């Protein structure tokens, strides 16, 4: 629920240390997908009912909860708009990014 804290990049120096499968390699924390975004979600907290649906649906775990309200982490948010689509009170608006 909390904002992801930056951690040191995981680098294995031998195949022997590695898991069998791509399993918690920690790579997505260092893949700043926010740069892909064309439209950004903006949350009007005045109308937010704190249901947590945006947090639950975000496919990139780019919404975290702070002081019981959702906050978008723009470092990772790709601007897919799923949160705005799913918000039951429509308090999330997708706004065009300025060039």
């Amino acid at each position: 629920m909390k904002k992801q804290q930056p951690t040191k990049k995981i680098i294995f120096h031998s195949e022997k240390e590695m898991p069998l499968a791509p399993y918690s390699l920690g790579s997505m924390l260092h893949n700043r997908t926010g740069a892909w975004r064309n439209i950004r979600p903006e949350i009007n907290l005045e109308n937010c009912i704190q249901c947590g649906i945006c947090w639950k649906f975000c496919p990139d775990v780019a919404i975290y909860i702070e002081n019981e309200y959702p906050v978008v982490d723009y470092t990772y948010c790709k601007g897919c708009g799923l949160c705005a689509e799913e918000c039951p009170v429509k308090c999330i608006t997708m706004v065009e990014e300025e060039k």
Partner: protein
Amino acid sequence: MRKVLMGNHALSYGAMLSRVQVIAAYPITPQTQVVELLSEMCAEKILDAQFIKVESEHSAMAACLGASLAGARTFTATSAQGLALMHELLHWASGGRLPVVLGNINRAMAPGWSIWTDQNDSLSQRDTGWMQFYCGSNQEVLDSVIQAFKVAEKLHIPAMIILDAFSLSHTYEIVDVPDQEKVDKFLPPFQPKFRLTPDEPHAFGGLTSPEHYFELRYKLQKDMEKAPALIEETGQEFEELFGRKLGLVDPYKCDDAEIILVTSGTTGYTARVAVDHFREKGLKVGNLRIRVLRPFPFEKVQSILSHAKKVAVIDRNISYGHHGIFYQEVKSALYGNSSVPVFGYITGLGGRDITLNTFQKIIEETQRNETPPERISWIGVKK
């Protein structure tokens, strides 16, 4: 208990005795009875498993991957177009190191629309990182499922049990269905080396940079290289308990054979009739049935075939623009190890019967030529 079972039901019984926990499948001829019987077993609580109905084979394999990743013993079955639709997720299973066992009934790929047997469906998946077992009898089908789970789970590599459409899938044979207690002794519950659980969250299948991808593939190949010995060892352990032997290959009268017919699937048993027929006429013929194509049994193939004067590989498949796929495999295994001439024959595509007469033509052509002809020999094509 001895039962009269069709090949498809031998697969179902194999899965039942392996105590699979999750089955996700989509019906397709000639596979349907496999999952039909399993769904009945689940409904009647003979089998304590989750049966997941899905809208496609792609989804079936996706459901299997999720279940396997959660630590469940997982099974599915399909055929031809269905297997092709799973293709993307077959890579996910092996790359994700999830030991799913899949029954594939060899059915010719469309078009022309066909429900009859040939091997191009499973051979198109040769390089997906799955182990492939080609079965010759219904007993072997049942036994292979149980053994495949044991090998797959030890190595974390998925396995495909393959049987010919109709000539095995719908053919009834006497099958010894072993006691559950005995199977439990042979095959303990799945103990995954890693899994997803809510208690210990992990990310699975995430972005893998050039820093790490190469090593993951190296590890898969290194474990695949352990498979031949493990398959043989597991086969011996199975034989001690159940009295039936299965290994990487199944040689028949190869020791003194001058011509060895290399086959796979049920074609092997027809080949044996041909072997006996020609031996009665004084010609020393033998048959090597390749049971496991991946991992390829290099040592067995080299040691058995290099004694022969000639080798004839019978392919119920073709790699267009090259040759039969088993032919390529056998030649590459022998290269640098033996100078025995290897003849390749394509026959039986799309379920055309392979009979004693087919083998007669193959043996005569192999006898007639000193060296293999450059062109492909098609046996039985209407020219």
